[in-house]
């Protein structure tokens, strides 16, 4: 119970207000709310665990905005879910995996999410991220660990035609990542007009 109280009291280092958009670029940078996240490591994963598919290709995300699972490597997943679910999910996954050796670690306190959307969101992200974020190389439903400026992030593109990205970074990097994103979005409109 103490754990649950502790979790809901968790401070959001960036607050919840969207970054201002003085340049009128339409890039919305909004820190995500409190969410639970788990790192799952397992070799030879089956099809699914606790309703979360484990058979997706590497660097893809499954699920919806409230409950998603991103495959970051051959044996590594990052799971995001509602805080209310956080107390039950690890046990449910462990029960489904049974005897198979695995590790599921609560990293909710480590991760901070920032939602980036708008038609020019990819341009703003490319200010710090060296990946090709074009439709062919990084379509909707992609997710990968990469770099943003000097910080390591997990970049997720939610399913759907409109570009909606989630940047997951470590807590101590979050002010840096958020500041760099806000600054990058200032130059985006200019780039598009050129």
């Amino acid at each position, binding site marked *: 119970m103490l754990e649950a109280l502790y979790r809901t009291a968790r401070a959001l280092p960036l607050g919840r207000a969207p970054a201002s958009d003085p340049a009128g670029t339409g890039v919305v940078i909004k820190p995500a709310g409190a969410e639970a996240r788990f790192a799952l490591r397992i070799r030879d994963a089956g099809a699914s665990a606790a309703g979360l598919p484990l058979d997706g290709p*590497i660097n893809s995300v499954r699920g919806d905005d409230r409950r998603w699972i991103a495959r970051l*490597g*051959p044996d590594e997943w990052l799971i995001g879910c509602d805080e209310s679910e956080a107390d039950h999910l690890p046990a449910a996954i462990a029960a489904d995996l049974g005897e198979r050796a695995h590790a599921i670690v609560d990293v909710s306190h480590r991760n901070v999410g920032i939602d980036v959307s708008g038609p020019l969101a990819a341009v703003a992200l490319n200010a710090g991220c*060296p*990946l090709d974020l074009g439709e062919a190389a990084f379509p909707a439903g992609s997710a990968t660990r*990469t770099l943003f400026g000097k910080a390591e992030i997990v970049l997720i593109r939610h399913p759907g035609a409109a570009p909606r990205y989630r940047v997951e970074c470590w807590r101590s990097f979050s002010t840096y990542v958020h500041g760099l994103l806000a600054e990058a979005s200032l130059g985006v409109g200019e780039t598009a007009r050129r």
Partner: protein
Amino acid sequence: MLLIACPYCGNRPETEFRCGGQAHIARPSDPGSLSDEQWAEHLFVRSNPRGVHAERWNHVHGCGRWFNARRDTVSDRFLETYKMGETPQSQKSTSTDSTSTQAEARA
């Protein structure tokens, strides 16, 4: 920007990777029988060729996996990348000393 083909993730920017030095260094099967010089040779002495070099690379800011690569040290061009334990394409026909080739031969 230099792109490196991670065997798991495909072409990714060089900044996501970290080099782990020379690849395919077999640990001596019986270290106790080696002299200090032989052990030091195994631990510290590496080749530094001008030309094609087999190296270990880690996709540290990506999938986190180690893999092997053959890289030309003159042009900095990656000739091929392959997973740990696999035989490089260029040596499949000639080399017989790697374990996977032996396993294939036995099968």
